[in-house]
């Protein structure tokens, strides 16, 4: 019945660690609830607010990729307002690359094999704060990565110098970023730069005519139908289809049709 009383210090550590974990869990639950609801810009702004409240940074912005540039989708505090658009270069470009974290931001992580790709920068001129060109004490850039593509960046800015962030807190923010990236994908309002590049890469070996034929395959048309639509002979269509299958190293016509759907060619043959 009479256990030795715990040392006050151990007790304090335990209570503090429990409460920190509960705060981490709460920010993720709150974000999940927000993103499961309305969605869109308001949800993005709300999640940014949660991230700032959680991390104690004074300002932040949510930047989404948009045709080789970044557009601010939501911002809080003395940083560029929503709608501002600029090219992704420097640190922002670095964090958009899949391997960015291994250059500077990699933290000693207690999860073996966990690759974190955030950038923690100190005393740098950041692109985000107002007035422009200001030096910030600390800036954290986290990529919004989901399903292998990077949809944008979450930037947290503090004008004051801060010491190293807690690894568990950074992991929480990374999870938050994945949730934001999923929301951005599903919103379909943006097409990540990487995805657009990938489509271009896949289609590169094809001629213009072959691309037209590929785009029509998801409709399940016969060679004769495709020929009529494009004003070419049935035999020519057959040759085009065979070349597509060969160039893209596919098994058959069905696989080609599936790939066309995956690349965004829907039933109409027009890209969405």
């Amino acid at each position, binding site marked *: 019945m009479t256990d030795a009383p715990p040392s006050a210090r151990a*007790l304090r550590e335990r*209570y503090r660690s429990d409460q920190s974990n*509960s705060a981490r869990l709460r920010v993720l639950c709150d974000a999940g609830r927000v993103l499961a609801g309305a969605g869109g810009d308001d949800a993005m702004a709300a999640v940014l607010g949660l991230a700032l409240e959680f991390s104690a940074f004074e300002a932040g912005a949510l930047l989404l990729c948009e045709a080789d540039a970044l557009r601010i989708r939501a911002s809080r505090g003395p940083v560029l307002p929503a709608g501002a658009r600029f090219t992704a270069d420097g640190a922002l470009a670095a964090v958009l690359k899949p391997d960015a974290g291994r250059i500077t931001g990699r933290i000693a992580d207690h999860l073996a094999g966990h690759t974190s790709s955030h950038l923690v920068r100190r005393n740098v001129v950041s692109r985000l704060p107002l007035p422009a060109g200001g030096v910030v004490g600390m800036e954290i850039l986290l990529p919004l990565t989901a399903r292998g593509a990077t949809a944008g960046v979450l930037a947290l800015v503090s004008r004051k110098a*801060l010491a190293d962030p807690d690894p568990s807190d950074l992991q929480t923010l990374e999870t938050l970023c994945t949730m934001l990236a999923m929301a951005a994908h599903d919103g379909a309002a943006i097409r990540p730069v990487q995805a657009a590049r990938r489509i271009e890469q896949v289609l590169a070996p094809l001629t213009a005519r072959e691309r037209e034929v590929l785009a029509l395959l998801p409709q399940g048309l016969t060679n004769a139908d495709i020929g009529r639509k494009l004003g070419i002979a049935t035999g020519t269509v057959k040759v085009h289809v065979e070349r597509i299958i060969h160039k893209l190293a596919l098994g058959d016509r069905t696989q080609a049709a599936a790939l066309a759907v995956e690349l965004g060619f829907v039933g109409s043959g027009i890209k969405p």
Partner: protein
Amino acid sequence: MNANDILSMRILIVDDQPGNIQVLEQMLAREGFDNVVSTVDPRRVLDLVTAFDPDLVLLDLTMPGLDGYDVLEQLKRHTPPDEFRPVMVLTADVTQEARRRALALGAKDFLTKPFDLVEATLRICNLLETRLLYQRLRALAKVEMPLGAWYR
């Protein structure tokens, strides 16, 4: 340091029960404190701390949504390590667990309801006195150190 220095300091009351807030407000007003702000919504505490910059926070523990422990954690995250902004917990929870947990999470004092109004005021004045001394000390030492990990 004179009585007016203490009486002009800012106090933030956080309690989901308007009745409890009223008791505290009347108690503080009778003593001569005229810089008191209160909220029944614990989710507003961070904004209020930023905007109002209180010298002392009087915090209830049992609240819906965000309880007093959560607020203590939030305040700890948002308070630089070299900052002293005392929090006094006032609660109906008389368990030892509650006292230990609140004090471990950074509360500087702990009172259970119903409390003696005079004792509560004396404790409040003691905390404010410490805060005042901290502020004077900080005014002397101007060197700014980097803040601890995310203020923790």
